[in-house]
């Protein structure tokens, strides 16, 4: 087991922190979007650079991927990828409370991504007494080939990452998307430090 792996207690603790954050995020989103937003129990796993592309390729039919960097105190940083399926963006403007002619589909996808990412991570950050800043979200692509090339670029910068995948469902709009948080190795060690501190305080 490498020093980047989380032991059972750490994994449980992180899972619990994420669960609580998901509950609060879903509540905030429901209020803002005026509809129920379901967040499915997250999947937490270690991925190495070589298998990252493969694991993300499960979302093979991805129509669009939006990437947004986040960074907080104590070296907690990473990148969020929002993965959308084709045809799921039809009712986005309506969901976001815009008139469809007020903004392009790309802008709607980027806007929603930013809302989902920042809402979840803000709550998560407050759970660990932290505060997040964000880079501007970027549409990586609307095509398969550029998604994999973006992923290859991503994994180029680290060998190992902690991957947290959360699925969002907005049933009223029959809309789904996945949020994939990737923490690079250096950030994993920092997360472990924070988790250990929380476990001690218990």
């Amino acid at each position, binding site marked *: 087991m490498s020093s980047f792996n989380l032991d059972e207690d750490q994994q449980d603790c992180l899972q619990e922190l994420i669960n609580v954050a998901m509950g609060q995020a879903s509540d905030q989103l429901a209020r*803002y979007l005026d509809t129920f937003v379901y967040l499915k129990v997250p999947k937490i796993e270690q991925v190495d650079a070589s298998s990252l592309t493969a694991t993300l390729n499960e979302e093979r039919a991805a129509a669009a991927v939006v990437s947004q960097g986040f960074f907080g105190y104590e070296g907690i940083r990473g990148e969020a990828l929002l993965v959308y399926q084709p045809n799921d963006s039809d009712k986005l403007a309506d969901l976001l409370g815009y008139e469809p002619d007020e903004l392009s589909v*790309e802008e709607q996808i980027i806007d929603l991504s*930013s*809302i989902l990412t920042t809402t979840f991570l*803000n709550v998560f950050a407050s759970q660990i007494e932290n505060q997040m800043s964000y880079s*501007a979200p970027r*549409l990586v692509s609307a095509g398969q080939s550029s998604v994999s090339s973006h992923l290859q670029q991503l994994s180029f910068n680290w060998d190992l990452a902690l991957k947290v995948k959360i699925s969002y469902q907005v049933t009223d709009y029959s809309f789904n998307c996945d949020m994939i948080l990737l923490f690079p190795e250096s950030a994993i060690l920092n997360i472990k430090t924070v988790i250990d501190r929380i476990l001690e305080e218990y």
Partner: protein
Amino acid sequence: MSLDKFCSSISNQLNTGVLILDLEGNIVLWNKFLEIHANKAPETVINQSVYQVFPELPKRWFERKITSVVQLKSPSFCSWEQRHHLFELPHTRPITTASRFMAQNCTFLPIESKAGVEHICVLIEDTTDVCYYQTMLNKTLADLALANRIDGLTQIFNRKHWEECLANEFSRARRYKHELALIMFDLDHFKLLNDTFGHQGGDLVLIEASKVVSAILRSCDLFGRYGGEEFAIILPETDITGACDVAERLRKGLEDLAIEYQGNNIKFTASVGVAVIDENDNRYEDLISNADVALYQAKSAGRNCVRLSQELVACDDLIKLV
């Protein structure tokens, strides 16, 4: 110097617009960047509605954006890539872009006090340069992508791209049981033309022949240079009669063509092979071989004629039958 003075001094030297609004959209802070670029002194805009100072703002959109920042206490972004600019400010550089206005990245930040979010800060970054270079890059990439598909001499599709098109058309026709025809033609005695008029004369023949054939084709037909003096045309949704008609017209068009070159009149002919998709064709290469066999038969039959694959019917006869 107090911290406040530091902050205001820095805010006024930033190459970024700093605009602070209250929740009704009234302007609370206006830094020097905005004063200069909007050409309005702070005293004329403070306490004014942002929608009055910038009537070009998409009001409903802007209000919803502010709501998201206030309610979710999260920053929100607006990139020039999706929305070239929000605020109509002039360029900072005299370079040509598609817009008269400064390209912008805008960031909306919640400003929290004890009572919650009572103000919004809008940061306006000038991205005119980025926009300009990105536009140039995109254009260059599009040019390169085109160059990658086109044969430099004749300006029709090159072999690689043409074959990719055929692979696509072939699988589509197979899947939906649609018709698909292929014409391959070769300029007769091309080596002799080269020997007589030189390679430049030969090149001119290739260019002019491509033009004549292109003019005959429909916009959905895919015309490529297969190699040397051999050309190939994919005819989607076309049956044997239609394909023979096109083949005969292009043979006639090339026969009638006279190219003026250094005081000479270059005349030449072409041999044409036609094939249509068949149940037995499993790969697109089968279609190419069938058309190629027909082309070879046209050559053996004395050139300057059209031959049809398989049934070995001379197309002249078929056209007469129609």
